[in-house]
């Protein structure tokens, strides 16, 4: 019998680091949101780098207000929708992917929190491509 798999994900690492500060009871929650903030901050830099220079073309530099709106807006979205979207996506992937039983909502938090600001202005184009594919996903308890 093999030894149990050690927790090697980032949430466990952050939980171990944050336990002395927030306590054992809150370590799991605090580490999840710490991971979301970390992923969001990395994604913001990528998203700002990918930001289309439409205002540069008009002879204006990207203003502090534009960057601030992007930073605060993406922070709100990342903090608000990452956990519920990770839950939904994990349950969908567990049904769709044959070996998807190991996919948990916790493992998707970093990717989702990163992608909210990193995809940034490209979200409408991404959704326009992804949404038509949803009809191929067998939704449990759907229309018969």
């Amino acid at each position, binding site marked *: 019998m093999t030894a149990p798999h050690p927790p090697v994900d980032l949430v466990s690492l952050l939980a171990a*680091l944050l336990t002395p500060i927030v306590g054992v009871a809150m370590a799991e929650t605090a580490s999840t949101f710490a991971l979301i903030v970390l992923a969001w901050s990395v994604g913001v*830099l990528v998203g*700002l780098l*990918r930001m289309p220079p439409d205002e540069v073309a008009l002879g204006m530099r990207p203003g502090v207000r534009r*960057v601030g709106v992007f930073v605060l807006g993406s922070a709100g979205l990342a903090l608000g929708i990452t956990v519920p979207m990770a839950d939904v996506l994990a349950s969908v992937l567990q049904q769709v992917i044959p070996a998807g039983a190991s996919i948990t909502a916790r493992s998707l938090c970093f990717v989702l929190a990163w992608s909210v600001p990193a995809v940034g202005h490209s979200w409408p184009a991404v959704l326009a491509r992804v949404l038509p594919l949803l009809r191929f996903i067998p939704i449990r308890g759907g229309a018969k």
Partner: protein
Amino acid sequence: MTVETLTAYCILAAWLVVAYRVALLDLKRTRPAVIFQHLVVGIALAAALIAPGAWGKLALSFGVLLMFLASTHRWPGAAPEGTRRPATVQFHFTSDDPRAAERVQAAARSAIRATSNRGN
């Protein structure tokens, strides 16, 4: 205001400065090393804001180390072009004229100024 709070504010302000600079960078004309430097410092600042205690210091110092290592090609053995100090020249001569040394030194200084990098 505790030192920890002040540190958090400073890190947050520095991260916002990095984010604003990243927004101003032109991806097509910027060298990859410069983009790497900004991303590394931004990630390190974010990690330093989240990681507690000495781990935050480790993240920040590692990011700064990587940032400096990314620009070592500009320091092959001397300061980059345009930031170099002009070479110092020493004179050893004797003359009957007490003003001769000053005149020669002034001429040398103006010659060095004319041949060294302008705009610094």
